[in-house]
């Protein structure tokens, strides 16, 4: 069943695959981000209570859900690295961690900027905000562990275990607004049934969400390629690649 994936355990094959994937991701990210953000920031109607301040939603919500999405993919990579000892899975987890941390920080900062005028405070220790802050610390811990060891396999193992332990935080973030009473509002878009948003506000959100997702894909792809090259720098195929690009 998983036979088609086997060739990608080879770093060289995967490197060339990311080469082919990258232009598509860049094109899709540029397309969806430009349509989504222009639509969201200039043409979508203002909210009846919040006015134009609500437009931060179009950055905040994609950043927050991607911060969780990246963590889940990192956990899957960590699991396959621990169980099947795929070295590339470690490389991909190391590539994902800083991107996830950045998006968590974006979600926290945009949330605070919205919270000050709307709620009346930058920060409150409610369940949603606190668990998202813990996610940022988990990312920072994973990044630190990836860089703490000379031996990349050992580093990957340590970071992988932390990643898997931290995965328990993801359902807590997601359902915090349902399990406890919080200042943070409940889910708008991912509600079962009808989203609590009118359609002319929802469509630009879908575009900007896809745009940010492809942007994450681009950044992770670039970092993953670098990670592969750095970890295989003594291999002949990498040397060949370098020589070729130098001659040009």
């Amino acid at each position, binding site marked *: 069943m998983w036979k088609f994936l086997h060739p990608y355990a080879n770093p060289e094959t995967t490197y060339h695959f990311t080469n082919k994937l990258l232009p598509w991701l860049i094109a899709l990210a540029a397309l969806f981000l430009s349509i989504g953000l222009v639509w969201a920031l200039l043409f979508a109607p203002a909210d009846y209570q919040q006015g134009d301040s609500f437009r931060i939603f179009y950055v905040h919500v994609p950043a927050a859900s991607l911060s969780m999405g990246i963590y889940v993919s990192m956990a899957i990579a960590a699991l396959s690295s621990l169980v099947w000892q795929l070295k590339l899975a470690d490389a991909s987890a190391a590539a994902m961690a800083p991107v996830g941390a950045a998006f968590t920080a974006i979600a926290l900062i945009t949330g605070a900027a919205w919270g000050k005028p709307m709620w009346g405070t930058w920060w409150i220790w409610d369940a949603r905000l606190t668990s998202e802050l813990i996610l940022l610390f988990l990312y920072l811990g994973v990044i630190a562990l990836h860089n703490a060891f000379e031996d990349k396999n050992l580093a990957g193992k340590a970071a992988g275990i932390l990643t898997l332990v931290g995965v328990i935080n993801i359902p807590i973030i997601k359902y915090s607004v349902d399990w406890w*009473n919080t200042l943070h509002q409940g889910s708008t878009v991912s509600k079962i049934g009808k989203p609590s948003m009118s359609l002319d506000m929802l469509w630009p959100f879908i575009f900007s969400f896809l745009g940010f997702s492809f942007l994450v894909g681009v950044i992770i792809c670039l970092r993953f390629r670098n990670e592969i090259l750095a970890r295989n720098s003594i291999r002949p195929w990498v040397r060949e690649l370098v020589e070729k690009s130098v001659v040009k």
Partner: protein
Amino acid sequence: MNPRRKKRLAIVASILIGIGAVAGLVLFALSQNIDLFFTPSEITQGKKETGVKPSIGQRIRIGGLVVPGSVKRDPESLKVSFQLSDMTMPIEFKESDPKVTVYYEGILPDLFREGQGIVANGILADHPPTGLSIEASEVLAKHDENYMPAELAEAAGQKHEKAGYSDKQLQGTK
């Protein structure tokens, strides 16, 4: 899958299940304390599961909906009082709902409106005429998950005027 991988998978899976169970139990035990605020009915009747009631003089957070028609503002200063009732879906206000009065002096957040969710932080007191009340030092607005354009909101009969301030009220705040 070869036996070594199977063993590693079993170890990882059992660690995850163990941590999941621990986290679940901890959160279950703490669930009352993770709640950000008391609702008006929890203040008057106690928490549903444990019956724990906050005592007079205790600093607590209260969360509820501003009862329409209950907002009283002093025209000379920033003193304001309003009643909160439980947040229920769909939103409706009944005479019999438990209500708690909030007294506050300061600028209200932009989203403060009648019928809006509010979280206030203050000291629980018992004033004879109004019953249980909160002397709030901080009032925060809680936004709900609904977003809509102004035309749609007007069609649905949603009020959305902000609370304005006169120059006289704002004197001494700058």
